[in-house]
């Protein structure tokens, strides 16, 4: 069917339109990682749900997909926690209060937190805690809805534990926080070992557990396997995926992981959807 009727230009998809934001504060988190706090230059903050992503852009350089790490209920600013890696994130982590950049979004599937009465286990590796931070705040806001809430956060070393200064507050609000580092180090009396191992040792998994997992691919599937072996229904394990998201609209093809287009079908998916794909090298 053809229709040669060039009428009105279709309304621009809001996800394609950059919204200029201004940095209001920069928080140095851990080595190479900063959190940018920002507000839009015009109009109100856009609404989002935990784990949703913004395409965050640096003038003349490009955009990177960054999850919004501030609480979804925070109405006075958004925060993006960014690790310096390539040219784009290097430019973004150099931003200073007063600087402008842009955001497109939010896009992607959020965490399903409709988990009343269940034991919630959050497992995060390194900067993987960033897309989980807003989930932590959402869970703690309605803490009484859940039977228990536990966070296992792992990092290379103690200085790489993200948001470490917030753990105490989270504990006070009813989140059992277990932090662990990969290798022993002087002055560290806490746990040593990978997130998956700590999850196994804690014995926090069972049929009543629902898990939210984010970290490197290998950490994700090792942890998910421990959970499933411990009796957690595979469908009750939610994971977030990281691939090269560029458009955020499912149009550009970059963020494919096997059958999934991550920006469209994810970043949060149920473990069975990726259990096989995550194990294939370079998929």
């Amino acid at each position, binding site marked *: *069917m*053809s229709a040669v009727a060039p009428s009105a230009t279709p309304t621009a998809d809001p996800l*394609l339109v950059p919204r200029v934001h201004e940095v209001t504060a920069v928080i140095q988190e851990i080595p190479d990682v900063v959190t940018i706090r920002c507000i839009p230059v015009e109009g109100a903050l856009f609404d989002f749900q935990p784990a949703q992503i913004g395409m965050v852009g640096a003038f003349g350089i490009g955009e990177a997909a960054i999850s919004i790490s501030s609480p979804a209920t925070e109405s006075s600013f958004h925060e993006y926690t960014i690790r310096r890696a*390539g040219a784009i994130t290097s430019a973004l982590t150099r931003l200073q209060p007063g600087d402008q950049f842009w955001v497109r979004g939010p896009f992607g599937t959020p965490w399903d937190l409709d988990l009343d009465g269940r034991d919630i286990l959050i497992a995060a590796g390194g900067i993987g805690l960033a897309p989980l931070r807003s989930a932590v705040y959402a869970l703690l806001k309605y803490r009484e809805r859940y039977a228990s809430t536990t966070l296992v956060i792992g990092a290379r070393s103690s200085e790489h534990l993200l948001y470490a200064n917030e753990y105490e507050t989270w504990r006070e609000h009813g989140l059992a926080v277990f932090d662990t580092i990969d290798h022993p180090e002087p002055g560290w009396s806490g746990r040593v070992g990978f997130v998956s191992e700590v999850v196994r040792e804690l014995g926090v998994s069972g049929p009543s557990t629902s898990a939210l997992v984010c970290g490197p691919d290998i950490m994700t599937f090792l942890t998910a396997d421990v959970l499933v072996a411990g009796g957690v229904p595979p469908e009750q394990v939610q994971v977030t995926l990281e691939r*090269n998201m560029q458009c955020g609209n499912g*149009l*550009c093809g970059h963020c494919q992981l096997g059958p999934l287009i991550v920006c469209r079908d994810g970043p949060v998916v149920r473990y069975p959807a990726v259990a096989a794909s995550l194990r294939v090298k370079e998929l």
Partner: protein
Amino acid sequence: MRRWLEVESGVVSGEPSIGQPGGQPIDWWVMRAGDLHRFISLLKSEFDEVIGPVAVDGVIRLRPIESADDLPTGFTEQQETGSYRLLETGTSLRFSYGLGPDSLKSIVHPPRSPVWTMRRHDGTLIVDQALHGTTTRAVIGARACDLRALDILERTQTGGQHTDPAFAVHRQGLFLVAIDCSHPAPTCFCDTGGDGPVADHGYDIAITELDHPNGIVYLVRVGTDHGRSLIESLHLAPAPRTFLEHRDHQHRSISREFIRELPKDAAKVVRLADHPHWNDVAERCLTCGNCTAVCPTCFCTDMDDIVGLDGETATRTRVWDTCFSMEYSHLGPGPHRTSPAARYRQWLSHKLGTWHDQFGESGCVGCGRCITWCPVGIDLTAEVESLGRPVEANA
């Protein structure tokens, strides 16, 4: 001799025709060379741009044309794995060639497309979104595989939750004149990889070039009301039944010409991620991305941000990308797919396998362009066949 001359005047002596003037609507019309000139002039007056096949740069490309004189009269080509040669036929046939490297993709999803311009003034960012012109285009020469590819491409860019506005505008302004394939290349496999060589939907007007013993004629049918109104305004004669029988005969002989075939289990075997054959392909593949450039459904794009010399203006352009490049899979620490085997696997397993999961169909139409334009002659049908063999047999 030259009995068809009578046809064009509408006097069909003794020939039963399909549809009667003044009675039921006509389904098939007949054109000759002069009518083709009139037809293209009509398109020129009706649309902002008329694009058609042109023999240029040693290949047949889709380019803007001024008149029927620009068509590749007397040209055909020879194609094989990694090879394309333009040849002269010594005939007056205009459409007796196989596919060139261009498909409708270049028109509806251009290689470069403006996205925005951003200006920085005293630290303030000002964004100007690019507007996509509403140019109307008639394209002559789309084959059945190109029409199917357009459908597939359209589903990737407008079929989901979000629509690419540039694609939507370009598609909306498109008027398609299909030409039935009379000359499939040896690299084609649309009978097993797609819908076959005859355009049966997706066009406004479709034309069969008939190499009739009495001379070359063009049989015309329409697919849309717009197509019908244009054709009716030319006052062509209805086509006699013998011409249609000749057309059937021509199509039947084409279907015997296909050498290659896409194995039926393609969607399954391309998902064998650990198959050793991926390494075998990788030893030949240059990861140049030619296959993705000529593929009529490969839709991947990248954003290119360029800063002006003043340092205060940045333009963003959407450009074709290829899953064969390292940057394509870039994540924080570096490329995710570094080995050529993983990149070839991504392309083929997506095209023939996971495309089904993402868009409900295969991403291949059997046009064979990737086979012709691969500089080292990698043949996707052969690779699929190898992937389908038991692993020991490949060793």
